[in-house]
């Protein structure tokens, strides 16, 4: 039992959990409104969206690459989702399906081009970021789609006490991604490729296939976030996804992911999102300039990578 406890304490996310609990208690103490049903609803709402964004990036960090186009894919799918319903009058399930298929195609493109060309995913996704975003702007001419079906709006606004209905989607995603990386062959293969691509290849893993699947998965998660954003905003904003980039890296890195690949933590990433959400919320509740979020977010990334490095070195020193 004590062994279990120690293992728990050594896990990537244990320190984060403590931080979250302490910060939560502190906030509740400073500002009782923090624990109000409505505030919890607001918190969970932003958590719902951001955790999907973070997972979308985390999947790619796991293979040791990065995906700058997460936001652009989310945005493109968001306006497609809203646009096809408004302009073509597509039924909701079909529009959702279309959004997911579009995302899968975007991810497929990222993955195939990266793998076949051997060019770094950074450059490829920088290019596709512009392409996807460019198509988005080109189609919408930067104007939102307003006529969202009532059912979608209702889904975006519905809640049970402090819990938004929407939370179901990210909850499923979290469980799914956790199972993928901890209990499924594909997930283990993704991690193996990220840790040592050559070794993975020699172990008979089809590296190309794994890389492409990871990109598709990333795009689908981003698309889910994009469509949830439409439901939440109650309109198809072309700017959806514009401000996802920093957050998408911040949460996995705070959660202990190694950017070189091969190691990510789903629980850590979720806690990373919680921390970001709390900071955001605290600044609003305490009436501080929202741009401090920007500042703190950056500082948090730096602190997290420093901490990860330090832990790594200490582990080496112990071994």
């Amino acid at each position, binding site marked *: 039992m004590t062994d279990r406890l120690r293992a728990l304490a050594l896990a990537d996310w244990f320190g984060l959990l403590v931080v979250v609990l302490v910060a939560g208690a502190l906030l509740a103490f400073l500002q009782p409104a923090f624990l109000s049903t409505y505030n919890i609803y607001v918190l969970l709402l932003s958590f719902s969206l951001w955790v999907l964004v973070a997972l979308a990036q985390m999947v790619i960090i796991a293979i040791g690459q990065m995906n700058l186009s997460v936001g652009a894919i989310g945005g493109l799918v968001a306006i497609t989702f809203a646009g096809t319903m408004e302009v073509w009058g597509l039924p909701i399930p079909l529009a959702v399906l279309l959004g997911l298929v579009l995302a899968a195609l975007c991810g497929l493109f990222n993955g195939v081009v990266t793998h076949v060309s051997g060019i770094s995913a950074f450059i490829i996704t920088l290019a596709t970021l512009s392409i996807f975003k460019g198509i988005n702007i080109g189609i919408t001419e930067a104007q939102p789609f307003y006529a969202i079906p009532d059912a979608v709006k209702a889904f975006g606004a519905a809640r049970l006490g402090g819990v938004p209905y929407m939370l179901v989607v990210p909850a499923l995603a979290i469980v799914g991604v956790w199972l993928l990386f901890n209990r499924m*062959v594909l997930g283990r293969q993704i991690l193996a490729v990220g*840790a040592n691509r050559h*070794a*993975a290849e020699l172990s*008979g*893993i*089809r590296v190309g296939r794994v890389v492409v699947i990871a990109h598709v998965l990333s795009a689908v998660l981003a698309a889910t976030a994009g469509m949830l954003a439409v439901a939440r905003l109650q309109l198809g904003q072309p700017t959806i996804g514009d401000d996802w980039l920093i957050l998408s890296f911040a949460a996995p890195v705070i959660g202990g992911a190694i950017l070189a690949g091969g*190691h990510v933590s789903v629980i850590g990433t979720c806690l990373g999102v919680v921390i970001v959400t709390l900071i955001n919320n605290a600044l609003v509740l305490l009436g501080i300039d929202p741009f401090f979020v920007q500042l703190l977010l950056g500082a948090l990334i730096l602190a997290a990578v420093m901490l990860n490095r330090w832990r790594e070195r200490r582990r080496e020193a112990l*071994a």
Partner: protein
Amino acid sequence: MTAVLEVRGAEKSFPGVKALDGVDFVLRAGEIHALLGENGAGKSTLIKILTGIHEPDRGEVRVFGQAVHFANARAAIEAGISAVHQERNLIPRMSVAENIMLENLPQRLGFVDYAEVNRQALLWLERLGLEVAPERAVRTLSVAQMQLVEIAKALVLEAKILLMDEPTASITPHETDVLFGLLRQLRDQGAAIVFVSHKLEEVFALCDTVTVLRDGRNACHAVPLAEIDRAAVVKFMIGREERVAKLGTKPFDATATALRLEDVATSFGHAGVSLELRRGEILGLYGLVGAGRSELAKALLGVGHVTGGRVEVAGKEASIPDVTTALHRYRIGYISEDRKAEGLILIHDVASNIGVTIWRRLAGMLGWLAEGRVRRAVAPLVDKLQVRTPSLRQRVGNLSGGNQQKVSVAKWLAAEVDILIVDEPTVGIDIKTKTDLHELIWQLAKDGKAILLISSDMPEMVALADRILVMGGFRVLGEVLNDHDYGRMSRAIMAHIHEAEAA
């Protein structure tokens, strides 16, 4: 006996080298087949063709009588071939068991069944006599343990054809014995095994048949080991009988100490290392892979650091925080064993690669570096070492291995160092250039430089060194005064290694 594996006329080129040039190879069920050859002869390339990592440019591969074209490693595994590769191929953060089972993770209901993973892995760990928990993360293991995990990973596939590329390079004689017992058992059950090693004693103890490669060609083809003696094998490997190049005599001043270590400990984990290196002397550091030789060199240079004891350069205590100080203040240079990763800048030209150590000295006001000055400093060295390059502007990546190595020697000559640490100088270099390099190193010592020679190539060691220190486990195990008699020297060196293991 039937041939389970047959290679005919295999050719493979890399930019600048023809690694295989029409190689034939045949492997039968129930034999352990030694694949020998000097470094760079093409052994690993042949293995990589058989495991789907490289595609041959020409030639035919037949497995169980069928012509095959492996598109990737998976295809080779599915055809019943498993391999231990020369370089490490483990996933550091995953457990020992998961690494061993990675080719084929057992599943239940779509999920990995970790209980089963551990159970199956444990079976092979036990057979190899490796006492580590299957759940342990690979990155916490020692080099030898990792090597054994690597071997377990190949064995677990229970393939009919097993290829082992220098599996014993970093494990102890005892672990080797256990492995050999296991391999014989597998052979007797009908497996066909290819065994690559530099240690001829091992080959004669274990193998039934031998194929020798030299410069990418067959020096001999599937000769039964019972019909051939050690001298003949060596002759196949190096193409002549005389193993040790005659280099003449080289007297040196036994009082002029260039480098002295006293009880040195380092951040890499060395302890109690003492040695003395004199001007004009070549001091050999022999040891298995993972003995801590390159690390000792790096600690001296300031890449790691010295944490205890005393370092003296030219009689004065020295503290070396970084390579810049080592080079410019103490005049110590290091020729890395890993030319591509640490020695050369392959995408830059010859002039830059040689000039890099002296730019600071050549630069004028505001760091201004005139092209002509660099050229004038570099060109004589290119001539002296007979580097074969079309011009000083040629990219080093386009030169052959031997000429690349000459460039990395030249940059330290340019820097006019007093102490030169040479780490595995002739790995992957053809025989002719190898002799050139030996003569060059020897001549440098004769001209008064102090040379610390790190090498796992026993003949090279015996040919060049004046004294040989044997290292193991980040310590000095003993010292041998070299009388250039190969048999006597190799026995003396191995004795030190065995002794350390017994203790």
